[in-house]
């Protein structure tokens, strides 16, 4: 079923945006009816299902798993057995004393809750005032949401004569602790389970005491949204809490949230003239005593009011209204619906968007080929839907192809302007298709003209036979139209060789890009560079020649150690230069240069000094 659109417009009250659908309820039941192995799971399952209105036979399991020395076990057994018909738990004096002893300031809130509930469900007498004082003491010590919720639940078992006023005030304090999420949800930060338990405890106590819980309508709806926002439940206890909350909201003395949903899509047409609504409580039970009234129904397009204060009639739990009887034009309508009949109803003003659909019929479809020079139509053919024109039309560059037609509502004859009115030409040979839009003029008469010369680009100037289609579609049309009206032979001037149009397939692999590595620079031919290398080295030969000619003083070469060392060192330095060029880096070179250089320097110094002395002596 369609979820009702929510419109929170300030003054308008909130309506539920989440609720349990029948399938959700079935799923909840399935979760709760899973097989159980211990008493706690049995309790959650049995009591949870009873909240949903199902009774389970499990008395023997409860009795056999009961541990009379444990307060918790007694609580589970007591409440579970209450939901099963004629299932009595035997109670001994020790059990009773144990339970009474647990009711004290020194027990935890959870223990007090379990003891009091067990006493209540087992039909044993309670000292209500004692419980109240114990609860008050525990509330001040355990100031968390779950503890106070358990206190509320506990108080709902106490005698009405006891002073429950202070505990009742806790509902308001807890409600103030709820977090408002976006104006839609209201929940405790502790989570969904605690929120749901709060809902059931608050209503349990309020019903018991007879005081309306201090929750505004919007807050109730927001709590409902939070509790029913989750449609699959992680644990049995979470499912149990949701079932409890649902039962509390479905049937308490003060607030009854109402869920309204349309049966199927909210659409009416001549074949389906009834707008059908389901009005239910939170547990998907139909509210047959309710009165459903359309306050206003306005057209979305014209804003005219079609209906005002019109009641729905009820049939088999479904509320229906024959909207087509008001003969609405096709389109969308905004319905404002009010549900009354119970003073407890909450969220009972609904805004609903209803669609009226219709069938379109195409009238007066005239196809013609008009000469451009004269404005006299040469041939006008009328085609009736869904037939195809018997002969094909021929249009070349001197002619225009024209089309005119009307779209009307089949039943009322009112002219329609649907969203999609397209003219499609499909070349069967090449697979090419071209689509144009047909537009209505001021009198809602659709006209389309194809100028073959002007439009040749769209057709890629491919002449040939094209199938002519009309496409009509709209959200409010029940019968969208694809109509092959005729074949047109188009002749374009300057026809290029027709290439088969390949459908644009976007998902084929694209051509591979070959990576272009950086091309090395153009080198001169090896011959040239070798020649020049020789040329550059040749002056050295010239030098040797000249030196020889000049009679360079090779004979004066002294073989003193410093001289030899100098020349060796110098040669080594030149060799180091070569090695630097080929292999080393600057740091290594400097290191070696320092060593060799200093040796050479010392040797050279000595050698030159000797030379100087020699020269000095000869001068």
């Amino acid at each position: 079923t369609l979820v009702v659109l929510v419109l929170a417009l300030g003054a308008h009250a909130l309506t539920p945006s989440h609720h349990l659908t029948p399938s959700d309820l079935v799923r909840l039941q399935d979760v709760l009816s899973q097989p159980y192995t211990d008493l706690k799971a049995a309790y959650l399952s049995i009591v949870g299902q009873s909240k949903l209105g199902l009774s389970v036979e499990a008395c023997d399991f409860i009795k056999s798993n009961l541990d009379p020395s444990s307060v918790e076990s007694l609580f589970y057994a007591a409440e579970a057995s209450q939901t099963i018909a004629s299932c009595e738990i035997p109670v001994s004096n020790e059990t009773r004393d144990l339970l009474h002893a647990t009711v004290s300031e020194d027990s935890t809130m959870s223990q007090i809750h379990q003891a009091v509930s067990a006493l209540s469900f087992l039909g044993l007498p309670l000292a209500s005032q004692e419980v109240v004082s114990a609860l008050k003491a525990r509330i001040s010590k355990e100031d968390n949401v779950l503890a106070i919720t358990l206190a509320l639940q506990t108080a709902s078992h106490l005698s009405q004569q006891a002073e429950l006023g202070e505990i009742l005030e806790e509902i308001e304090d807890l409600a103030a602790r709820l977090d408002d999420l976006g104006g839609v949800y209201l929940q405790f930060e502790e989570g969904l389970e605690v929120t749901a338990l709060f809902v059931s405890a608050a209503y349990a106590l309020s019903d018991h005491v007879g005081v309306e819980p201090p929750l505004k309508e919007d807050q109730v709806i927001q709590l409902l949204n939070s509790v029913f926002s989750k449609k699959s439940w992680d644990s049995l206890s979470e499912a149990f809490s949701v079932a409890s909350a649902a039962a509390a909201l479905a049937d308490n003395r003060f607030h009854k949230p109402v869920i309204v949903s349309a049966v199927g899509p909210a659409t009416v047409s001549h074949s389906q003239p009834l707008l059908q609504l389901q009005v239910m409580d939170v547990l998907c039970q139909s509210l047959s005593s309710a009165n459903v009234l359309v306050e206003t129904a306005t057209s979305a397009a014209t804003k005219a009011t079609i209906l005002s204060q019109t009641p729905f009639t009820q049939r088999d739990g479904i509320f229906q209204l024959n909207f087509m009887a008001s003969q609405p034009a096709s389109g969308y309508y905004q319905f404002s619906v009010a549900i009354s009949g119970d003073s407890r109803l909450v969220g009972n003003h609904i805004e609903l968007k209803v669609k009226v659909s219709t069938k379109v019929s195409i009238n007066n479809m005239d196809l013609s080929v008009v000469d451009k020079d004269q404005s006299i139509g040469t041939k006008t053919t009328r085609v009736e839907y869904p037939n195809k024109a018997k002969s094909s039309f021929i249009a070349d560059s001197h002619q225009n192809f024209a089309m005119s037609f009307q779209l009307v509502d089949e039943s009322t004859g009112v002219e329609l302007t649907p969203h999609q009115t397209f003219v499609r030409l499909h070349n069967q040979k090449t697979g090419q298709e071209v689509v144009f839009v047909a537009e209505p003029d001021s009198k809602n008469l659709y006209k389309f003209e194809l100028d073959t010369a002007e439009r040749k680009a769209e057709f890629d100037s491919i002449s040939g036979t094209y199938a002519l289609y009309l496409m009509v579609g709209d959200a409010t049309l029940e019968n969208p139209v694809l109509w092959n009206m005729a074949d047109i032979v188009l002749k374009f001037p300057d026809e290029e060789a027709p290439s088969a149009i390949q459908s644009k397939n976007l998902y084929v692999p694209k051509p591979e890009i070959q990576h272009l590595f950086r091309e090395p620079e153009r080198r001169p031919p090896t011959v040239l560079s070798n020649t020049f290398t020789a040329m550059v080295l040749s002056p050295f030969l010239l030098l040797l020649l000249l030196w020889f000619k000049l009679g360079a003083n090779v004979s004066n070469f002294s073989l003193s150690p410093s001289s030899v060392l100098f020349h060796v060192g110098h040669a080594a330095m030149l060799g180091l230069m070569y090695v630097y060029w080929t292999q080393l880096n600057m740091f290594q070179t400097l290191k070696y240069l320092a060593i060799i250089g200093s040796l050479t320097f010392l040797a050279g110094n000595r050698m030159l000094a000797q030379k100087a002395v020699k020269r000095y002596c000869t001068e």
Partner: protein
Amino acid sequence: MSNSVISVISRFLEEYTTSTPNKLKVVDAYLLYILLTGAFQFLYCLLVGTFPFNSFLSGFISCVGSFILAVCLRIQINPQNKGEFLTVSPERAFADFLFAHTVLHLVVVNFIG
């Protein structure tokens, strides 16, 4: 006009061959060698293009640098210039020449790539 140029040149060559000491001629021959090497490198660069530019530069600058250092050496060992270089003996000049060359070659080889 050309006559006087030719006569000047021939006179110059004559003077050169007779009055220049042998040491200086040795250095001059070295200078000529350096010059030719540099010229040939430059010619290659003009013909073929500047790729790889760093190699051309280092080679050319090596020639230019060597030429300059040799010219300095020549000036310093010329006995006619002795008056201007009282603190610098020919040996010292030669040692400076070698040291400067070491630095030059270090830079050139670094740049030659």
